[in-house]
């Protein structure tokens, strides 16, 4: 790839007093991408965004926009704009003047301002409301104004700091799709910070999962979901089952509880000692014990400990020798639920759906 990234972070560290918020972070964000930084609160995602925007200065490292080093430059000298979590609309200005603010600061005049602002209000589906004051708008409308205001200067990168956090669920879903459409329309790089994994997966083409001021894993939503590389990522994106074991050296992992699990080629790369094998609950077939499962699948026997019907699927907790395993079985066929509490069942899943992560040490302590 010889394209110059829109944003480059080189070994960026941010310390507040003696707290390390961002820890030696390096990152490149390609032009035109919808990039999400995902993680729990305190993982450093917002601080990273604020450093790109110029609201915090990094303690160490460099930040580049395109080829230009912007370290130490104030926000008004950086070609990025921000949609703030609280919207931060100017309460004393009309909706029109809120959106026009950036244009006026760059010396755009008269008819050009009008044309550009109206274009933006059109883009966010708020035409004709220019005279209103922010306090006369609903939360969803304020959010759209904030978006129009940040996009009006056609920045190189748009930063979004938990932009949907204050909206109710239905509006949030609607805005997710709309944000994606707008990003498509304007073609600007979006960097989006959120703690909501579903939001990140719906919108972003690349996700950086952050934890403790570092990036745990970076990739497309499908990569992160299908092949998580750490237990944290496996647990943060969706649900997963983790079974502890030790590599056998022949492409299988011997479970502590007995038996072996086949894993994809290469997924054990360089690993020795204790590992965990993981698989997603919806990748598992559940059958009556004694049924002959197709060859080549990993198997595990157990007893149904809990069963709940949730419409699209039935969710089981199956007690096995290796611990409880969650199974989501899609209710594709009409008729009875196949397995009740106390039934002996056989679980089977493909080695391709299996991933390997380091055994979380914390997890071990919790169990003991």
């Amino acid at each position, binding site marked *: 790839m010889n394209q110059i990234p829109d944003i480059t972070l080189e070994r960026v560290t941010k310390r507040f007093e003696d707290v390390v918020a961002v820890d030696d972070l390096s990152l490149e964000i390609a032009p035109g991408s919808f990039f999400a930084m995902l993680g729990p609160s305190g993982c450093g995602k917002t601080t990273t965004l604020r450093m790109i925007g*110029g609201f915090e200065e990094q303690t160490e490292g460099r930040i580049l926009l395109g080829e230009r080093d912007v370290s130490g430059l104030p926000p008004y000298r950086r070609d990025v704009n*921000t949609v703030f979590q609280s919207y931060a609309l100017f309460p004393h200005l009309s909706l029109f003047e809120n959106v026009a603010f950036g244009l006026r600061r760059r010396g755009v005049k008269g008819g050009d301002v009008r044309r550009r602002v109206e274009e933006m209000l059109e883009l966010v589906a708020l035409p004709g409301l220019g005279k209103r004051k922010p306090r006369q708008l609903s939360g969803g409308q304020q959010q759209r104004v904030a978006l129009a205001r940040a996009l009006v200067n056609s920045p190189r990168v748009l930063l979004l700091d938990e932009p949907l956090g204050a909206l109710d669920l239905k509006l949030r879903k609607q805005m997710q799709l709309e944000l994606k459409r707008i990003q498509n329309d304007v073609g600007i790089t979006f960097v989006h910070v959120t703690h909501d994994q579903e939001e990140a997966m719906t919108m972003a083409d690349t996700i950086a999962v952050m934890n403790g001021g570092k990036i745990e894993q970076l990739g497309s939503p499908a990569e992160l979901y299908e092949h998580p590389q750490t237990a944290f990522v496996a647990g943060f994106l969706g649900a997963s089952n983790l079974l502890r074991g030790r590599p056998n050296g022949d492409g299988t992992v011997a479970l502590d509880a007995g038996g072996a699990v086949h894993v994809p080629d290469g997924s054990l790369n360089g690993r020795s000692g204790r590992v965990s094998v993981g698989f997603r609950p919806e990748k598992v077939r559940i059958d009556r014990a004694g049924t002959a499962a197709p060859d080549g699948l990993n198997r595990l026997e157990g007893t149904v400990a809990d069963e709940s019907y949730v419409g699209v699927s039935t969710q089981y907790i199956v007690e096995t020798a290796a611990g409880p395993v969650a199974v989501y079985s899609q209710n594709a066929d009409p008729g009875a639920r196949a397995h009740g509490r106390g039934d002996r069942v056989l679980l089977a899943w493909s080695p391709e759906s299996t991933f390997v992560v380091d055994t979380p040490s914390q997890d071990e302590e919790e169990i003991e």
Partner: protein
Amino acid sequence: MVESRLARYGLRLATGATLAFIYAPLIVIALYAFNERRTQTWPIKGWTLDWFGKALDNPGVREALLTSLKAAAGATALALVLGTLASLAVQRYRFFGRETVSFLVILPLALPGIVTGMALNSTFGEVLGIQLGLFTVIVGHATFCIVVVYNNVLARLRRVVRSIEEASMDLGADTWQTFRYVTLPATRTALLAGALLAFALSFDEVIVTTFTAGAQQTLPIWIFTNLSRPNQLPIVNVVAVLVILLSFIPVYFAQKLSQESAGGVPAAGGAR
């Protein structure tokens, strides 16, 4: 909550009594301003508007009124600049002794006027060698006017301004433009409310003024010196009414402004 009828009437009565306690004497003065006779006797026998004309023609009253207006305007202007700057510094920066600065700015409001007056008198007269006059009155009044501006502006800054200042800088406004187009307009009503209160405080101040005015007479001082002259009493009453009005108006508008912005400006959380 359902109150008993007795409690409800009791509270109404108490409110009425409180208001009567505060305002009855003022009403008495206001009525005497329309008294036909030169001597004050109750009940008033006849009514006239003559004293208003005479009071406004009185050169001593005119000069005192002018001095009072100048002093109040000067003190308000000084308080606006210094109070605003102090509140910006305290709100925006964390520095060593910040809490102490905040405390020291507020203290003069509680300090007895007579102590402030003495202290200023000695400082101007003996240490700085400045002749007492309008300038020293303005500085003297500013010491306590700063507080009301500072408090009003600081409250507003704390509530809304930080996030919209960031938004402004983000959209390309430098520090000065951000102040000019965002900070100042967003705090405008707080500034105005502070200024009106400061004006009212300065306009009717007596104690600090007596120590700092020198030969100058403000309206309250004029009243004080003429109170003992029976001849002047009807005019004094009129001037008192004038002072009451000129204090009421700013306080009324200041309160209205504070209420408006309290309901109007959305908090930083926006739509929640």
